[in-house]
């Protein structure tokens, strides 16, 4: 693991979905360096052409803490927000876990053979008041994200989706130029894999899909 990145999942004290919950101050925090998702890994020639020579992955580090609450895992992410005004895209972040084992590194946010489960959060632009801020996605590459249950990979499905509303929740605060976001999902898949990746998108830099900053190596999840 890069820099010995390991996050300890500790027992939650009370409701900790709110990133400002006092209980978070007692949870160990790990600082994780992020790197741009490589241009050559981007899923199509258009994106590679459009972003060649344009800097992205501007969020370079994120502070991470994790707690367990019953059957849930809560992950708190904290990073410095870009000072630029928001444009068409919202700031966003996600944690992800190998969906079915495998050894591929997290840098591409899943592969066709080794998909990952993403718990995604995004800020809302002013016009998007009714949108959910959290959702669970299956990723098979940078930006190749689908709602859980939508046809993916080689499985030619019906196109019907069975997103499980409520299976992933998130809460966020932005104070003094820093985002504080908590995402919550089922502990099962996360603890089974024992590994977690992180991706953060700077919306003011038009970052979205595979254009973002990712943890180059898996974080080991341990339980105390």
């Amino acid at each position: 693991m890069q820099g010995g990145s390991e996050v300890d999942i500790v027992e939650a004290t009370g409701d900790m979905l709110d990133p400002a919950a006092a209980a978070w101050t007692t949870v160990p925090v790990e600082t994780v360096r992020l790197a741009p998702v490589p241009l050559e890994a981007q899923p199509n020639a258009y994106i590679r052409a459009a972003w060649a020579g344009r800097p992205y992955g501007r969020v370079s580090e994120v502070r991470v803490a994790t707690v367990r609450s019953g059957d849930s895992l809560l992950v708190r992410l904290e990073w410095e927000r870009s000072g630029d005004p928001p444009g068409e895209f919202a700031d966003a972040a996600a944690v992800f876990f190998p969906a079915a084992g495998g050894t591929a590194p997290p840098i591409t946010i899943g592969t066709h053979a080794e998909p990952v489960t993403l718990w995604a959060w995004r800020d809302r632009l002013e016009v998007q008041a009714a949108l959910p801020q959290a959702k669970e996605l299956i990723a098979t590459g940078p930006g190749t994200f689908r709602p859980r249950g939508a046809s993916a990979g080689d499985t030619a499905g019906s196109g019907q989706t069975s997103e499980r509303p409520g299976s992933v929740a998130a809460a966020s605060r932005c104070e003094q130029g820093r985002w504080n976001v908590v995402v919550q999902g089922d502990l099962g898949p996360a603890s089974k894999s024992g590994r977690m990746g992180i991706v953060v998108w700077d919306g003011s830099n038009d970052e979205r899909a595979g254009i973002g900053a990712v943890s180059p190596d898996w974080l080991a999840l341990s339980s105390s």
Partner: protein
Amino acid sequence: MTDTAMPSPLDPGTSGDGAKAPHPPGQVAMVFDLNKCMGCQTCSVACKVLWTREVGEEHQWWMSVNTQPGLGTPKGWEQMGGGWTEGAPAPGHQPSRAEFGGGWEFNYDEVFYGGKGRSVHLAPRDTGDGTTRWGMNWDEDQGGGEYPNAYYFYLPRLCNHCTHPVCVTACPSGAMYKRAEDGAVLRDEEVCQGARFCMEACPYKKIYFNYARNVAQHCILCFPRLEVGVAPTCARQCPGRLAFVGMLSDTDGPIHKLVEEWGVALPLHPEYGTGPNIFYVPPLAPYRLNEDMSIDEETPRIPPEYLESLFGPKVHSALATMRSELERVRSGGTSEILDTLIVYRWPDLFGPFTTDPASLDRTPEKVAVELTEGSPQRG
């Protein structure tokens, strides 16, 4: 529009019911005769009423009619990049809400009911985000030339359902696809994650973004109508009888003849490289007037170089063909091309899609069954 029954992008071409399909698989194409378009926007409104009436769709005009010359909608779209350059996708700009404009609320209450009918003009409410500074059939309505040789014409624009749809290439989530049975370029809105690379890549800037639902949206070629033999609503509602619909490969149909045989219908901006399947008969214009108001029969009022900038170099031979056909008819001859473009019988516009939608069983009970069980036509 939400349509959970859309076919899977991973399984294109299997959603139609072959036994019921009104035509063999192939590319559905359209031809718009710009000589007959009067800019009435009935096509735009027909499309709006049918497909984009929900929250987040207020500013969307999947069919829009711009006045030429002009900056169009979104404002300055021809300078926004995208398309293919030497076989590679070219970076493009994502049009902003302000560049599209539209979706306005008007001060009806003040003008009609607030007693200010004589002092306040009817106008869009300024939302402070620049979206009221430009709009389809509003500020873009320009034109060219100087009196007495001013000129303008109308250009109905919709997604071209391209043969090489760069929007499909640009989509990272696999939400976009071109389906085999009719060549419609579609998007599975359940899969779309709102990344909007399609909007950047489309050189025609005919993809809109639904901010309320975080999905991109564009013309669907009225595919649910095509599946039951009904022509797209823009074509059917056009009072100018100028929008042909049919299979590009049908050698007996008007589209094939106008495009392939006679070469009088051309794609818009062929240099963008996407292979549009919407074609236009370019506008012939009155001759120029000299200063003494005599007619200059040598000079068309619409500069040919301007038309070439829209339709490519083939526009000159297309116009020459049209002029010689006109001349023949004026001299007492006949012209199959002009007879085709006149459209003596309205249904001749619609190829295999002549079914009257009013003849379909669209009772609420039937629609409810289709929504729960899936349309039989969609498999």
